[in-house]
Every structure is written in C-alpha cells, then in structure tokens.
C-alpha cells in the first residue's frame, strides 16, 4: 500500500498497455474519465486555485504587509516550534514502538497495535477535551498538581505540543512497521555475531534500511502538525502573541471585519497550503527511490 505509486509504475505497466489496446475505443471509459476529472475539478482543483487568487486580489502589497505583522510572525514561529517538538517526540516514540511491535512478543501487543491507530480516527475536538479533562489546572485530574509544581500544560505550549503529538502519533509508526517487517533481523544479527553492540548494529544496519520510510513518516507528521486546528483550539486558548498558532490566526482574522484582516487570513492560509502541498510533492517524489535501492 505504501508503494501504490511505485507499484503502479513498475510491474503492471505491460499488462495495462494491453488493456488499453483492448478497450481504448469504449465510450464508457471516456465518460468515467470525464466524470472523475470534473468531480475533482469542482471539489478540489478550482477551490484551491481560488484561494491563491483571493490572496492576491488586492495585489502584492497587502500580502507583504500581512507577513510583517508581529502577530503573524509570532503565530508561525509558535506553529513551527510546536510542530518541531511534536515531530521529535513522535519520531522517537515511533521508532521504539515500531521495533517493539515488529521484533518482540509481549502481552498486549495486539491491543497496542490497534490502539496506536486510535488518534487517527478520534475527532480533534475530542482530543482537546480529553487533554483538558486531565491537564487543566482548574478541573483536571493531574493538571492542578502539575501547575503547583510549576508546569502549566493547558493554555500553554506544553498542551499545544501534546495535542499536536496526539493527532500525528501513528504516522511514523505506519511507515516504519511494514519496512521493518520486510527487512527482518538477519543482517542485524550477523552484525551482532561479529561483535557489534546493539546500538552499533541498529545504527549501521537497520537505520540505513528504514531511512526513507522514516523520512516519509517525519514529513507526514510535520505536515499534519503544522495544520492541526481543532485540538489546539481547545487546549491553547488562542491568545494572540501568546498561544495563537497559525491555523488559529486564520480563523480569528477571517472572522474579523475589514479587508486587511481577510487578506491576512488568506495569506496565512496560503502559506499553510503551500507547505502542505510541498510536503505532498516531497513524499510522492521520494517514494520511488525506495524501490531502486
């Protein structure tokens, strides 16, 4: 699955060529192709291009002004640092959990592998609420204790990082598990028998083999982290210059009156969209390399 693009490029080509010669004149094919293109055009392509157009509807100057607002700069800085920490945590967590799931048996292994996917299907709002119920300084289970120990989680960066890490938790693991399963442990065991320490064996044998999968996982997590909105909205409070991330800024500015605010919202949205599309392009263009190794 991870390689749908590569697989479609390599072994099925000849077979597909044959199908084309058999059915190329079928009108059904043309109708279906047209329906699909029209559907994607109206649902995705046209609306996305309109956002770019709306951003520059008053020319370049208001866009540049928007980029220089301290609130905008702060929001993007906060978003970047939150995403960085969430990705670091998820990468470390993801490598360890993937190794445990693939290479060891232990009680609860199956339950763990199912639970790992929970964050992908839980509503961001439920994520925010769940964190609030435990870590809120006022009503949370352990939030009060943490706060008296000097650690504020909710309405502060730690809470935003936790919410972001929660929603992107499985992405690294989902990339790593299939690759780790495929490469097995033979080479690493050979290295061990030749006197390498476990860490040496991992760094010189396993890490090079999983580096592409790890990179996709990191890029996916990063893209997801930069764009998280719902969960962050609940735990951050969204105070400008303190806990307002880029997505929260888009919402706030769009709802305020005046063309400047609208342009600012569109500008921030366009930057987020460009990062997302860039991440997509990076992932899709890197993927085939895995096969040619």
């Amino acid at each position, binding site marked *: 699955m991870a390689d749908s693009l590569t697989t479609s490029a390599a072994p099925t080509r000849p077979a597909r060529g044959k199908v084309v010669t058999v059915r190329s004149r079928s009108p059904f094919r043309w109708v279906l192709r047209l329906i699909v293109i029209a559907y994607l055009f109206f649902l995705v392509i046209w609306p996305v291009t309109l956002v770019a157009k709306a951003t520059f509807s008053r020319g370049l100057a208001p866009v540049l002004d928007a980029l220089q607002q301290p609130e905008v700069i702060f929001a993007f800085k906060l978003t970047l640092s939150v995403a960085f920490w969430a990705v670091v945590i998820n990468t470390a967590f993801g490598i360890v959990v993937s190794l445990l799931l693939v290479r060891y*048996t232990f009680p609860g292994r199956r339950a763990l592998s199912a639970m790992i996917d929970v964050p992908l299907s839980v509503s961001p709002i439920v994520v925010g609420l769940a964190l609030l119920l435990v870590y809120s300084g006022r009503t949370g289970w352990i939030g009060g204790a943490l706060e008296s120990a000097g650690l504020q989680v909710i309405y502060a960066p730690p809470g935003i990082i936790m919410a972001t890490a929660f929603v992107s938790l499985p992405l690294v693991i*989902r990339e790593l598990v299939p690759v780790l399963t495929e490469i097995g442990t033979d080479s690493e065991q050979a290295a061990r028998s030749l006197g390498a320490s476990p860490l040496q064996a991992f760094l010189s044998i396993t890490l090079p083999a999983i580096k592409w999968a790890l990179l996709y996982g990191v890029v996916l997590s990063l893209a997801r982290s930069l764009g998280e909105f719902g969960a962050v909205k609940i735990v951050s409070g969204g105070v400008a210059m303190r806990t307002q991330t880029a997505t929260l800024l888009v919402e706030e500015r769009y709802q305020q009156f005046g063309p400047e605010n609208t342009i600012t919202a569109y500008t921030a949205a366009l930057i987020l969209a460009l990062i997302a599309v860039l991440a997509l392009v990076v992932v899709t263009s890197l993927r085939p390399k895995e096969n040619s190794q």
Partner: protein
Amino acid sequence: MTSSAVTPLVERPDDAPPPAPRGRRRRRRTTDLTPVAGLGLGITMLWFSLLVLIPLLAVVVQASEGGWQAYWEALTSPQTAAALRLTVSQALLVTLVNIVMGTAIAWVLVRDRFWGKQFLEVVIDIPFALPTIVAGLVLLSLYGPSSPLGVDWANTRVAVFLAFLFVTLPFVVRTVQPVLIELEPEVEEAAASLGASRFTTFRTIILPSLAPAITSGAALSFARGISEYGSLVLLSGNLPYSTEVASVRILSYVEGDKLMEAAAVASILLVVALVVIVVLDIISRSVARHG
C-alpha cells in the same frame, strides 16, 4: 496525505509476530523482551498512557459522572440530538458518495491512461494534507458568498455536506487503488470472452475482490466525517438546529464549562471511532487469511 497514511491496517502483517517455534500455549504467556526492550516498552507505554489512554479514559469517566440519567439527558437534549442527527446523516450520505466516486476515481487512476494523471494523484491527497481550517476557506471561495458560480451555500446544510466530502475524498480511493492494481485484467478479459457483459464482469469479478477495500475506505471516511470540525468553522456558520455538527456541540459545551455534557457527546464519537478500528482490524485479518 499519502496512501499509507490513509489506509488502514489492511496490509500490516500484525498477525505474524516474529516466528516462535514454541507451542501455542506457551507462546501466549512468554515474551522475548530483552531488558533494554522492556525499558523501551515501559517508557513508551508511560507516554502513550499520559498522552492518549488516560485522557480518553477521562472522557469516559467524565461522561458517566452524572449517572445514566444525566448522560441520556445530555444526548437527547433537542439541540444536541439535532446536531448528532445532522452529523450522522451527512456522514452516511458522504460515505455513500465516496463509495461510488472513490471507486470510480481509483478505477480511472489505475486502468485509464491520459495526460495529467500524475497530477490527479497529487490532487487526491490534497484534502488530507491541507489544514482543515484552510480546507474550509478553500471551499468557501467557490461555494461561499463571493462564488464565481453564483451559488452561496455558506451557512447551509450543503456546506456541511461539501466539507465532509472534501476531507474524506482520499479514503476510499487510497484503499481501493492498491487492490485494483493487484487485480489481474486477464480474469476480466476471460469473463468478457466467455460472453459476460461489462456489468456482469464488474458485479461478479471485480466488486467481490474490491469489497473489503471499499468497506475499509467507507469506514474510515465515515469516522472522519462524523469527527470533522476545522473545515466547518468558517463554512457552515454553526447554526443550532440547522448546521451545527457534533464536534461544534462539544466545543460549545466546553466553552460553557459543561464538561459532563461535552464528554457525553464526545463518548459517542469515541465509540464510533473504536467501532471503526475494530471493523478495520476484522477486515484486515480476514483479508490476510484468505489472501
């Protein structure tokens, strides 16, 4: 964002733990954790509990705080019930559209060849990659007040439908696509040469092989639909009884400091998410078993 991020465990060989030559009974009880691996398991489980398990447990505990009566009243209060009905019905409708359109898109991407197909591959993943708040803004620009089409569907139920449709686009496509690639065209050609019509071939040969993948994609897209929030904020207006969905209802309970009611609605979304995960697990296991 990419195929693998969207697709469920279908391809994950979870069922095949490291081969253990021991008896079935003994294997269940023993582990082969080394001390270092055991430490790793401990630390990651501690983090996983603090981040995911304990907070989700807190939702369930909070929901049950007022007893069964209060829980039921929270869910059946007119505004909440209306929000839940809207969310579920729109998510079902969108899932049906996705089953048809997602399969059609996957079909075109795998079996058709035309200029610009690679571009469509990227387009499919855009809804997954785009921040949800941006997705709302994107849809607003074509279907909102300043639409070049001359329609204004902002703050209507159509907006809810469109937002769900946008964010769930990749799921069925990305689960069906790999199965379709594996499917041998020779079998269909054989059926056609034996006189089966295109429809018969589709119904008796293609559809049964795609069914598990379509079901997985449908389950994922339903789960994503009912939990959607970000894309609706700017688009649907969140009008009570009209365009307010479950997530928005939870948020307004949280903002009104009614945590028990918020947790009650959240528990419904949580149950649906868990059911979807179990369904996907069952499908992936039966696919793994039957090849």
